């Protein structure tokens, strides 16, 4: 359904060109759920942003159902059926939750305001709330997820949906993402959570800007665990050397 073909991405930061992604070869199939995982800064969100059209790749192509959409902007891609729930959703002064949900449903078949209930927010309490600083990080994140559910795109990309969400809501979140997944939908979840990695068909490990490993949970999970522990030990050892005379 969504194919990233030999994607390269460089971003210009303070006049310098920084390589972000290289040799990304991914083919997300309809009806399947995927998890993108890997260390912070490895390029997971950048892959999502290339898919959504927020970043233009320096090299390579993006296809949706066989059609080359590389040159298309964010709006066109959204209308073609790609949706993205931000890791850190922006806040809007004056815009209400109901306004956002209505905008999300404008270009799709959509669901309805029940999406709020599905992610544990009572519509009566939240529809008229404004998406500003009066909402907590967890609330705004849940509303972001509800917005993507309302938009109901064919390709759904959730960027760390668990971030900032309490444990009880997290269980509910996993259920709603799983339940709303259909035969004709592709779900991509950027996550580090074991429960999310358990629910997907395939885990894709991103390291240093490229795909370093992919497979099912049984294959990937032990590797991730080991890799995480190794890097922790490595950094601890480094700290030990740097701060040999630690007063503690």
């Amino acid at each position, binding site marked *: 359904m969504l194919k990233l073909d030999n994607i390269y991405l460089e971003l210009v930061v303070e006049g310098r060109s920084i390589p972000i992604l290289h040799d990304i070869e991914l083919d997300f199939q309809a009806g399947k759920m995927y998890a993108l995982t890997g260390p912070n800064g490895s390029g997971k969100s950048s892959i999502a942003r290339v898919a959504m059209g927020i970043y233009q790749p320096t090299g390579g192509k993006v296809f949706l159902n066989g059609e080359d959409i590389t040159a298309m902007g964010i709006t066109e891609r959204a209308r073609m059926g790609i949706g993205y729930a931000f890791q850190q959703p922006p806040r809007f002064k*004056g815009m209400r939750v109901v306004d956002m949900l209505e905008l999300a449903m404008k270009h799709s078949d959509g669901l309805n305001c029940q999406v709020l209930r599905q992610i544990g927010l009572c519509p009566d309490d939240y529809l008229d709330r404004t998406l500003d600083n009066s909402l907590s990080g967890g609330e705004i994140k849940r509303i972001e997820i509800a917005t993507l559910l309302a938009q109901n795109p064919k390709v759904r990309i959730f960027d760390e949906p668990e971030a900032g969400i309490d444990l009880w809501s997290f269980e509910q979140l996993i259920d709603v993402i799983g339940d709303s997944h259909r035969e004709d939908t592709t779900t991509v979840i950027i996550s580090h959570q074991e429960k999310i990695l358990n629910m997907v068909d395939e885990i894709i490990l991103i390291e240093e800007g490229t795909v370093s490993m992919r497979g099912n949970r049984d294959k990937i999970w032990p590797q991730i665990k080991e890799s995480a522990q190794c890097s922790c030990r490595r950094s601890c050892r480094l700290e030990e050397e740097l701060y040999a005379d630690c007063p503690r």
Partner: protein
Amino acid sequence: MLTALDKKLLEEIAELHDDPPGAFNIRKDGKGVQRRSLEGIEIRSKEDQPGIDVLVAPGKEGSVHIPVILTETDLSDLVYNTIEIGENADITLVAGCGIHNPGSGSARHDGIHRIIVRRGARLKYSEKHYGEGEGGGKRILNPKTELVIEEDAYAELELIQIRGVDNTNRVTEAEVHAGGRLFMFERLLTDGEQTANSDVVVNLMGEGSTARIISRSVAQGNSKQTFNPRLLAYGPGRGHVECDSIIMDQSTVRSVPEIWAENADAELVHEAAIGKIAGDQLIKLMALGLTEEEAEEAIISGFLK
């Protein structure tokens, strides 16, 4: 007799249709053209100067519409209105001015309102400005509102000007007595070569008096806006001023909030921010299928709602 144009202007500023509910006074091109008083809400012409007195009896509930429309060019209209809301009354008052300037001369309205909200009364006051016209003549509105909120009374002011007015100088002065509360929400959008100045002075006089002033504005084109809200506490009152502006194109926004306390138990806060529409806000809405222009429009209309 009101023309179709008059009705359109009245609809814009006061959502008034053929038969306005409650009491009303419609002023057109410097003269009163329609009026209805009700029991407990008396509207009468002033004898010594242009304008009306609106007298609301104690305990009365209802609505009053006092819109002004200008449909001629080369016209300058000055009006003094006095509004007294009796003790424990509960009133919605819709003022506002709509200008259709058909020519190249200027059309100007200076509305000076003196409003007294007596002890325990509630007033919801809405003032909307609107301008249009094909002749290129200036549309100028200079409202001045003097407000006294007596003990335990409440007043809510909604002041709106979205496009169409070339120059505006708005002055709002309020005196809030013990236990009185003021909520003021100003919304403004200017574009082209328009200018808008808003000076607000709120005096918190007594114990438990509170004021919240919110000013939201969008400046587009080459327009210029200046805000100068001042909040002064002479007693143990609480107040909050918030000025928030979206700046676009080549516009200029100047925001100078001031807080001043003369009592150790006063609590005053001010916040002011000027900034453009954030890139991630546009991206978020475009990722829902809106074009960049639609996203910008949605952000602005939400901000000014």
